[in-house]
């Protein structure tokens, strides 16, 4: 949950990248990490297995600058995609302020997207959240591949509300910052309401 510290004048928010295995969540974080100035970021921590699959989470703190004199710090997390890591996915959603769903645009990953999105809704619910009411962005990743589902079809299948839908090629950075910006904007707008 958002943490506002008046003494150190900081706002801390937590954003989680969700999606099926190998859809490009870690790649999103890696790109943000690689293109951010050293003074604005901390370490990118990956709790990965030996075969490089995310085991528990990836984590990266990112400082975006100040709003009304408050330093805004975003804590970005990814979840492990594999079905059998559901327990760790639930844990990472605790205290979340905003969610990015990274969909894999390839035809053969359609079922995996649907299953993961369903799992997100369920896990949010188990933590007391409702996807319909939290800051949320749908990213359609891997648009560079030949076998992708057309954007309108993919969006029609996966969108849940009037969330921003952003096309991306995380591997080269296309759409990565647009996605982050879209979710960060909603999180900060929530503060305005609270």
């Amino acid at each position, binding site marked *: 949950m958002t943490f506002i510290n008046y003494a150190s004048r900081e706002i801390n928010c937590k954003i989680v990248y969700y999606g099926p295995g190998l859809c490009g969540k870690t790649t999103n974080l890696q790109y943000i990490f690689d293109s951010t100035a050293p003074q604005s970021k901390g370490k990118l921590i990956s709790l990965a297995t030996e075969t490089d699959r995310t085991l528990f989470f990836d984590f990266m703190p990112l400082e975006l*600058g100040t709003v009304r004199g408050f330093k805004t710090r975003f804590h970005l997390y990814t979840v492990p995609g594999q079905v059998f890591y559901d327990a760790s996915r639930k844990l990472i959603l605790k205290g979340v302020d905003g969610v990015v769903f990274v969909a894999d645009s390839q035809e053969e990953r359609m079922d995996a997207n649907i299953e993961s999105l369903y799992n997100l809704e369920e896990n949010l619910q188990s933590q007391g959240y409702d996807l319909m009411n939290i800051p949320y962005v749908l990213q359609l990743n891997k648009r560079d591949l030949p076998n992708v589902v057309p954007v309108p079809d993919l969006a029609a299948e996966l969108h849940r509300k009037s969330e921003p839908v952003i096309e991306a090629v995380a591997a080269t950075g296309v759409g990565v910052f647009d996605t982050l910006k879209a979710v*960060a904007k909603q999180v900060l707008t929530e503060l305005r309401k609270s």
Partner: protein
Amino acid sequence: MADTPIVMREQQYHQIKAVLAKLRLDSSARVAFLVDKDGQQIAVHGDVSTLDTTSLASLAAGNVAATTGMAQLIGEKEFPTLSHEGERESIHISVIGRVLLIVVFDERSSLGLVKLRVKQASVELASIFEEVIRESSKKETAEASLFAEITDEDIDSLFN
């Protein structure tokens, strides 16, 4: 809607810092560190020049979340304390409601001493934090207007 934000005021922050300072001294620890259960750091006292506190906060929260998950699988609510002892450096974590108290110590201290002092500090921290939570849920006009004034331009300017 996500949880209501936790709002920490100057005065409470300094109270917390004072408790951490005393704890560190009394337990001869390197660092005393308070983070919330989501991994966001709240206050720290001690020599942190070589310590990546942001990463430590996130990993400690992940560690507690994972062990709490394990506790529930065997029918416990949570494990209130965790300690990891290394060859020279060690970590003690205790769960105080919504926050975690982390103490980093080396051979100049001992787990027994740290546990004792942490117990005492926990009582004080719990009561300060109760107040933080209570006040966070109150709507205060000053803050309300501060954030109500955030404009789209303010937000856009973060991404330049």
